[in-house]
């Protein structure tokens, strides 16, 4: 199940011809950003089987420096602490709002505001909320990469 991805604020598409240019990029940009964000959400939380040992695919869409940082903060950015104590998760909400920086209508950066809510099953029954922002840039290959994040996680 992919996240619901919606467009938030856009900087750079108010006037013509930028508006027209951005319209061409809009759908593809949201799809690609959604794909990068979902790689993290699926690989780190809800798209993998439990119990498990690692989350090796969670940070595939991160830049190399961001991936190194994320691995150091795996307790925050994945289900690391629960990985051996649960046997599954049930997604309640996975929503992504994307603010785009698009000078002259061409997307050059984005902030993905993420809200993920899921319940764990197994030895530990918990409602986990992951929310925050991921910062993304387009790559030369046409994909988007996460170069930074500001994420919080809560559970009860």
């Amino acid at each position, binding site marked *: 199940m992919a996240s619901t991805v919606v467009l938030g604020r856009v900087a750079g598409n108010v006037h013509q011809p930028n508006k027209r240019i951005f319209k061409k990029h809009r759908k593809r940009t949201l799809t690609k950003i959604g794909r990068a964000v979902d790689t993290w959400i699926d690989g780190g939380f809800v798209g993998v089987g439990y119990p498990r040992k690692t989350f090796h695919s969670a940070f595939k869409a991160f830049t190399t420096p961001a991936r190194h940082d994320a691995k150091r903060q795996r307790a925050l950015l994945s289900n690391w602490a629960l990985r051996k104590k649960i046997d599954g998760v049930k997604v309640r909400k996975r929503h992504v709002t994307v603010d785009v920086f698009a000078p002259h209508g061409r997307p050059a950066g984005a902030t993905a505001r993420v809200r993920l809510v899921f319940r764990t099953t197994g030895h530990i029954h918990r409602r986990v909320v992951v929310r925050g922002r991921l910062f993304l840039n387009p790559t030369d290959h046409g994909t988007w990469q996460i170069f*930074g994040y500001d994420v919080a996680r809560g559970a009860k």
Partner: protein
Amino acid sequence: MKRRILRVAKLATLGVILAVVTLTLPDSAPKSTEFALVKVHQAEAANINKNVISILAVGSDARPGENFTHTRGDALQLVTINTRTHAASIIGVPRDSWVDIPGHGHDKINASLYYGGPELMGRSVGNLIGVQPTYVFVTRFQFFSAMVRRIGGIDIRNPYAFSDDPLKRVGFKAGRIHLDGYDAMAFSRIRHTLPRGDFDRSAHQEIVLKGIQAKVRAHADKPGFIEHGVLDAMSHMYTNLPPTELFRLAQVMAQVDPSKVRSCVVQGGIGTSSGGASIVLPYVAAARDMGNQIRKDGTLSHCG
């Protein structure tokens, strides 16, 4: 009656023209250039921690009509940021520091901007501290005011009360105060009435920079704040950076934790040049010590 109809028609035509111009004007079309942000190519980048980026912030004293990237640099602050820990440091350099400017001999360090623009300014400060900046950011004071005004002013803690007749007669109270655009400029420029002149002024500039960063950080999670901020900056900026890098840089700066920012000012003795000008003879060993600290992880544990 005919004349009235004509007047209404003229107004309507003008309205339509204005509307068309407004609608067709690109969002980030260049307006007046208020800032310059230049990436400086550096040979010694490998010696610096990969998670550390450094930006030299320069306040130019250019008068209207002068090229602000080729006048004297009045405020000189080297900002280093650790992108992993979100810690930062600011090293202030007194503008009258007497140094060897590459290719121009000994002169006040702020003349580097006049001789060779942002690149040479960066090299001179880099040679003094021992760490070359990755980026050089230049603005003039009046635009600095506008920049602070755009973010709604800043809140700072002023260590002691001071005033200055031409710039701020009523002065600044000690303690927690709010600075609007003009006040931030005055707070950063006043020098004559400060106990330690240029050194204290440099420390004040660091306080203002911290205030700006804290304000940006506090608003960074507002939807579209960074995106619109960068676009607005771009429309007033000369830069050799691609938009993707500008966006990344803005996010990195906005992520700095204000509680992890430490600042120092390069100290020195007071002297006189052969031409009779008052100069600062910087304590180079102490400046290099600061450079060695920031080279490791971008932070300062002490002021050299």
